[in-house]
């Protein structure tokens, strides 16, 4: 179900946005509009939807409009035109009280520089959202303490924020955002100010929190690796608009244009690409009931020296080698059962390539890729993995 739908969103900074909108419709570029009517185009032509419970990443270099877009969603920035629908309710036309209520109950935000209140303790920072809703002190502190515990800050309740390290400060930021139990979390470069090791562990923690709490998260980042790691969907932005939306793999394997291609060029594909993305179709396979003669013929036709055998439900049964099959045919043994090698290397469809490489290096057979129910989904040979890693834009390579 779509939690958030953004349609034709435009934000112009300046006194006469209508002039800029007119020029935008004519197809003028940002720079041209700035020169002609002195209006700055923040974002334009933004269309996307976010499903309930997913992590949606807005990704792009600084100045591309991603933070502006994020702030339009809780209306910290008023969009110039377009519509944002949350749970079926259009919030672009909502009254200030409605927006305030929405910010209190439904949407929370985590900031890049933490934005903790330096005059409040960690506990009272975390309790801020409830405090302004008028929740009694004891009750809101109890809830805040609970949330601080889930983000791993038990025992720090009475410290002041500036006594904490960066990573811990951002945990407080996260706790503050979670205390009023919102459906939606907006995270603006939440981990960008942290050093790499802390950033990585915060990402892991966010993912496990996400699994436990199932919030809808919109995450802004300029770090592609971060986007690929945590995003269910990624919207790549450039110059105020979205260039491409898709899963990590979509963006890596099917960049829509040169910009995206250049952007993803340096990614360590082995961490992102999964078996599914690099495997070959499971063809040919021999069915368990077929016998060595069929197996041998298939291998000869395809010029291969071994073949996977599957059950009638296409579950992986094992692998048959050409010489064994030949031997069986010579000795008139009609069943595959005796020559099948059941102990074959296998990986699941979502295994990343980086974990496949050692498996494939260790075996003389192709590697079977199986789905969760054991069905054979595809085959990996050394060549297909290498091809998948260097592949750029061309799915058939």
């Amino acid at each position, binding site marked *: 179900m779509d939690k958030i739908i953004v349609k034709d969103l435009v934000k112009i900074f300046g006194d006469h946005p209508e002039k800029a909108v007119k020029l935008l419709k004519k197809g003028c570029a940002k720079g041209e509009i700035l020169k002609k009517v002195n209006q700055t185009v923040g974002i334009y032509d933004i269309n996307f939807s976010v499903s309930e419970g997913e992590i949606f990443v807005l990704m792009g270099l600084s100045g591309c409009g991603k933070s502006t877009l994020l702030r339009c969603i809780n209306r910290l920035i008023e969009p110039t035109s377009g519509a944002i629908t949350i749970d079926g309710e259009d919030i672009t036309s909502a009254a200030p009280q409605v927006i305030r209520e929405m*910010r209190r109950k439904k949407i929370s935000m985590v900031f890049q520089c933490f934005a903790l209140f*330096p005059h409040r303790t960690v506990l009272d920072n975390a309790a801020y959202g409830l405090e302004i809703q008028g929740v009694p002190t004891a009750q809101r502190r109890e809830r805040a303490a609970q949330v601080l515990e889930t983000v791993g800050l038990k025992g720090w309740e009475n410290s002041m924020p500036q006594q904490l390290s960066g990573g811990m400060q951002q945990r407080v930021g996260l706790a503050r955002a979670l205390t009023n139990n919102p459906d939606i979390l907006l995270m603006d470069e939440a981990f960008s100010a942290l050093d790499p090791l802390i950033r990585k562990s915060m990402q892991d923690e966010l993912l496990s929190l996400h699994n436990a709490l199932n919030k809808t998260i919109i995450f802004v980042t300029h770090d592609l690796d971060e986007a690929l790691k945590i995003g269910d969907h990624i919207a790549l932005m450039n110059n105020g608009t979205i260039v491409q939306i898709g899963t990590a793999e979509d963006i890596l394997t099917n960049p829509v244009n040169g910009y995206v291609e250049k952007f993803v060029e340096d990614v360590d594909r082995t961490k992102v690409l999964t078996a599914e993305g690099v495997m070959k179709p499971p063809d040919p396979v021999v069915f368990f009931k077929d016998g060595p003669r069929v197996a041998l013929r298939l291998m000869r036709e395809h010029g291969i020296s071994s073949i996977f055998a599957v059950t009638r439900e296409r579950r992986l049964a094992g692998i048959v080698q050409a010489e064994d099959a030949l031997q069986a045919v010579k000795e008139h043994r009609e069943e595959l059962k005796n020559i099948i090698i059941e102990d074959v290397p296998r990986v699941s469809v979502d295994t990343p390539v980086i974990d496949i490489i050692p498996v494939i290096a260790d075996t003389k057979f192709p590697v079977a890729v199986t789905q969760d129910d054991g069905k054979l989904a595809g085959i990996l040979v050394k060549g297909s993995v290498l091809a998948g890693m260097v592949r750029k834009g061309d799915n058939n390579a």
Partner: protein
Amino acid sequence: MPKLPIGLWVDQVVSWAQVHLEWLFDFISRAIEILVTGIETAFLTVSPLIIIIIMFILVWFIANRKIAIGTAIGLYLIYNMRLWESSVETLALVLASTALALLLGIPLGILTARSDLAHKLIMPLLDFMQTMPAFVYLIPAVLFFGLGQAPGLFATVVFAMPPTIRLTGLGIRQVPVELVEASDAFGSTEWQKLTRVQVPLALPTIMAGVNQCIMLSLSMVVIAAMIGAGGLGFEVLTGISRLDIAKGFEGGLAIVIMAVILDRVTQSLSEKRKINFK
């Protein structure tokens, strides 16, 4: 081009106000007198030595031991110079005008921080208040309030309020944008944002404004004495008119002692509230 009758216009406005707003000025004058004499009586009914001991403890509590000892010595010196009553009169005037200046100045400062229009209107007015020679206020002050403490307080408030407004406005504008944004993002009302985030974070700067306000009030006491506000200013003034160096110096020294005590105490108040933003 003929001379513009600017002075005449002001004169007419003042005369009009004098006639039509007399009731208001009378009321204000009465209220001020009650306030100032109230503070005076409170200090004068207790023996000076007891007050010195109370101040010693209080200042130790607010600031530190060093300042507390200095305070006690300074106050004893004033007592010893037989200037205790004049000092209390001056202190009452300073406290009352500071209170009034803060009461008006802090809300106005907040207003200038929140509205650009208010900022644009109030800032030139503050420039005017601060640069117009203080003696010039004395004329309408006397016309409105007669002689005594009320016109002294009026002139003092006009003179001492601008830094309060400026520093309050500055303090609130200096609160980091992301903190204001965070406060908004959690659904704070404007009032909640002001009272829970902006004012607490601006407090060190606001306190610096309070300090400035007190210092400027003190610097006005001699001038206010010219229109009958009494106190240490009067001592200095008689010293000047009689060319009595001894009397003038003692009065001046008492003012300095009070200034230093008030300055150190308010400064340590704002030091304690200083917050590290990063």
